[in-house]
């Protein structure tokens, strides 16, 4: 299948890129690794007049960490880089697990975490953990820069809160509070190397007495955008993590999920998987939070 006709733009500065976005508003698509965009172009799922690569813009790559600012993942950081970054493995190992769960190593050497986020697919591997960890997306426009809380970033399948003149330049992941743990769980029709039928990201923060002080649960592929399991979160707050409370949280999460039946899974299967994976994710996250288990990725 051939690519449709478009003009290819290759800005070498953020300023130039923003100016091009301004100029061709609505007629332009942004490409980083291209692992999603090129496929969508060849299938005519998108038909832009202009395709702009951001690969030549300096300073968009890189993964940084500071105790105060947390982890910053540049827009051009490859999935493979996030998967193997010592900083990520130390400060947010679940982001590395989610990156590794994405496609194959060849694709991870091309694709970016930011691309996976901006593509806004409900089943994206890298979104649930970022939601659980309450990340922020840094968006730049001509003169301005703003941070979008990830809870407000996804508007629908393929639709994000980025304005037509904005480029997402970095993901900021806050440093976790003491006593926190995160988990990423995924199920897909094939055992490995596959798109998620359901995926769950969970963050659990425990207080000194072992009660749940904070919890965030993100459910993927069970709604048009990543969904928060709000009932389960509210239920767990202030409670001890036991098999019974975990099971109930799983059940409540399944209630909040609104999956469809499609070629990848049935609605009923997805609901049950939300329950199973939420319970597992919370259990694992609580284990990390209490220091009883440590991650060996």
């Amino acid at each position, binding site marked *: 299948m051939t690519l449709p006709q478009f003009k290819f733009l290759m800005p070498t500065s953020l300023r130039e890129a923003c100016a091009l976005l301004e100029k061709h508003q609505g007629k332009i698509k942004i490409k980083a690794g291209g692992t999603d965009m090129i496929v969508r172009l060849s299938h005519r799922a998108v038909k832009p007049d202009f395709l702009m690569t951001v690969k030549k813009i300096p300073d968009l790559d890189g993964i940084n960490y500071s105790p105060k600012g947390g982890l910053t993942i540049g827009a051009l950081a490859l999935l493979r880089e996030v998967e193997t970054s010592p900083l990520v493995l130390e400060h947010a190992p679940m982001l590395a697990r989610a990156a590794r769960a994405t496609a194959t190593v060849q694709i991870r050497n091309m694709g970016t975490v930011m691309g996976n986020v901006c593509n806004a697919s409900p089943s994206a591997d890298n979104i649930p953990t970022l939601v659980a960890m309450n990340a922020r997306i840094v968006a730049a426009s001509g003169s301005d820069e703003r941070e979008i809380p990830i809870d407000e970033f996804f508007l629908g399948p393929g639709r994000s809160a980025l304005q037509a003149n904005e480029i997402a330049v970095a993901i900021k992941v806050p440093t976790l509070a003491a006593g926190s743990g995160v988990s990423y769980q995924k199920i897909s029709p094939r055992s490995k190397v596959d798109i998620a039928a359901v995926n769950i990201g969970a963050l659990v923060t425990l207080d000194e007495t072992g009660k749940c002080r904070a919890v965030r649960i993100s459910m993927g592929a069970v709604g048009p955008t990543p969904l928060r399991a709000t009932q389960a979160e509210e239920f767990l707050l202030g409670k001890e993590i036991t098999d019974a409370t975990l099971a109930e949280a799983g059940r409540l999460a399944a209630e909040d999920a609104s999956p469809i039946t499609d070629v990848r899974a049935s609605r009923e299967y997805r609901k049950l998987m939300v329950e199973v*994976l939420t319970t597992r994710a919370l259990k694992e996250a609580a284990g990390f939070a209490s220091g009883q288990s440590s991650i060996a990725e």
Partner: protein
Amino acid sequence: MSTDHNFSVVGKSLPRSDARIKAVGAAQYADDIFLPGMLYGKLLRSPVAHALIKSIDTSAAEALPGVKCVITGQDIPKIKYGNWRLVPESQDEFALAIDKVRFIGDEVAAVAALDKDSAEEAIRLIKVEYEELPGAYSVEESLADNAPVIHDEYKQDIPNISLDRKIEYGNIDKAFAEADLILDDHFTVHAVSHAYMEPCSCVAEYDHDGRLTIWTSTQAPYFVQCLLASTMEMRENDIRVIKPFVGGGFGGKMEMRPWEFCAAFMARKIGRPVKFTLTREEELATGRRRHPMNIHSKIAFSKDGMILGKEFIVHLDGGAYNSMGPTACFLCGNFGAMLYNYPNYRYYGAHVYTNKPPAGAMRGFGAPQALFVAETQMNMAAEKLGLDPVDIRLMNAMESGDEIPGVATISSCGFKESLIKVAEMTNWREKRKNLKPGQGLGLGCYSFISGGVFNWFNTRYNFTRAEVRAFDDGTVHLMTMASDIGQGSDTVLRQILAEELGLKISDIRLTAADTAVTPQADLGTWGSRVTLMAGNAVRKAAQEIKEELFKMVSLKFDLNVIHDMRCGNGNIYPANRPDRAVSFGDAVKMAQRANRGEPIIGYGSYTPRNKGLVTPAFSFGAQVAECEVDQETGAIEVKFMTTAHDCGTPINPMSVEGQLEGSVHMGLGYALSEQFIMKEGKTLTTTFLDYKIPCAEDMPPGVSVHVDTYEPDGPFGAKEAGEGLVSPTAPAIADAVYNATGFRCMDLPLTPQRLLAGMKKI
């Protein structure tokens, strides 16, 4: 390998002759061929499953700049084709639909343009007016009262059953009356894709002398030659089919297909070469596939575990055309009675038309379906009778000399040895007792054919033929129409020839699969026929050369007539006087002198005669799957696969091993994850994102061993390897899952969702 056979080239894991060119990326496949002035072809396919074509307007497409040719069913000869030439009324396809379309993807029109973009755009500009008809999308719907008749011009006793087959021997009713245990079960098996790495592609050229040449990704150049000749109203000798490198076939490339016809027809019409290359989406949405089947199997046992008889009723969901369905329908009945002695057997198979992409030949050709059912029922019977699944099989297993009445005689048979071996290797009896919850061990077995005997293509030639030319520099040139499509036959045939002539593999040049150059004929690569059938032809051709050269050595040393002559190490010598050796090249030189310059050429043919109705030789094997099931998610992980099999002499053990690993991979996808999800005839899983082939990471570790047999009908004792092994994997995994969960899978694929539903969790 039998110890009394001392081979020097056969039985060695020599690297493939095509390994280097493929590894460096220099192998030319059909799509790599670019001819001067070549145009790009594209097919317009029906978007509706069943409809009358009221009108086609191609004017806008023809007016598009760059478009050089547009054809529809109205432009082509009204000649139907199909591989079953023996039964002309079974030939039910036009290259482009005439008046009616029968599945989503049915080819309606074709264009040729200067570039791919213009060809695609032209396709979009063709306007077709359809009058939609009700469709039938399953065996049940097709056989229902008032079902739409899919081929109304083709007289059928039962509407939509294009062909059926009955087999019966013994007294099955008596067997059921006397049985202690009867299993009476319904199974459904699904369609899967060949998913060969190389999508179909061809380039056709028509020259000023009136000859058509087509380079095409095919398993059977001869079929393409014959069927192009009949549909193009040309003579076979005016058509040259060349098989370039082919990236796999698995049965999906053994027919003449519409793009081959359209490339040839348009090349002739406009005098420029035309190329077609299918997209993966076309392959998945419209391509041939393995037959889905509804199978009703009723099997009778005595209380001590002996099989008394079986009734096997199969409805094949054939899709919109016969394709290779008749063969699958026939073979399914044969495979239903393989592996064990069924003293009483009744088979009824019916090939049913539906408004879906046609199913065709695919690795196993009826065996994966029949053996999923047969092996599952053996496991069920073992449990019900309190027997070990290995023991119940050993009691009933076929052995050398057994006869399937009126069908075949089993020559070499290493089935029992395979069972015993696989049980030993897995520590089967102990391990089965010590399984943790969620762990399972399962057994599946297979038998397969080494090429078919039944001449449904109605060839007038021998089934295979080889020509060997010997040169005085000690080399030979092998010419054969046998088609290496990635399975390694070019290497294996060279090994066979080198062994026979006592040469090195590097002494052998090979030209293969060009209908204008290589000897007529060879039926192609399918049904695991090439090693045995082409191998036998190559040996015979070599033997003719040897006879000629033996005379020279005998003359030179004035040898007594009782001397046994040998070829070895590049020499020819009397068996007990190796000092009286003449080099192969010198012997050729002498023979050529003696023949006043005539080249030294040997010919060999092979056609199975007096080999029953099915095949000259059967392979056998047994496989154990070890699985772990996540009982909450239904995820099934295959931890290890152990295989013991009998392929006679493995000519190239490394190639055999590659085949076996490929079989496990394909069997794994068939068992667990691959499926065409369809809605009213429309295939929804049209990319590898949603059509779930196991990835490298999904492959379990495994080990396999050959059981030592020697097939008297095969070259150097060889028979089938690799195709049959696609069959045991699904029943072995399903049995392991049963042992892990208590859910007995009788409908493939065994997805996590189906498993959880079976465990009553959703």
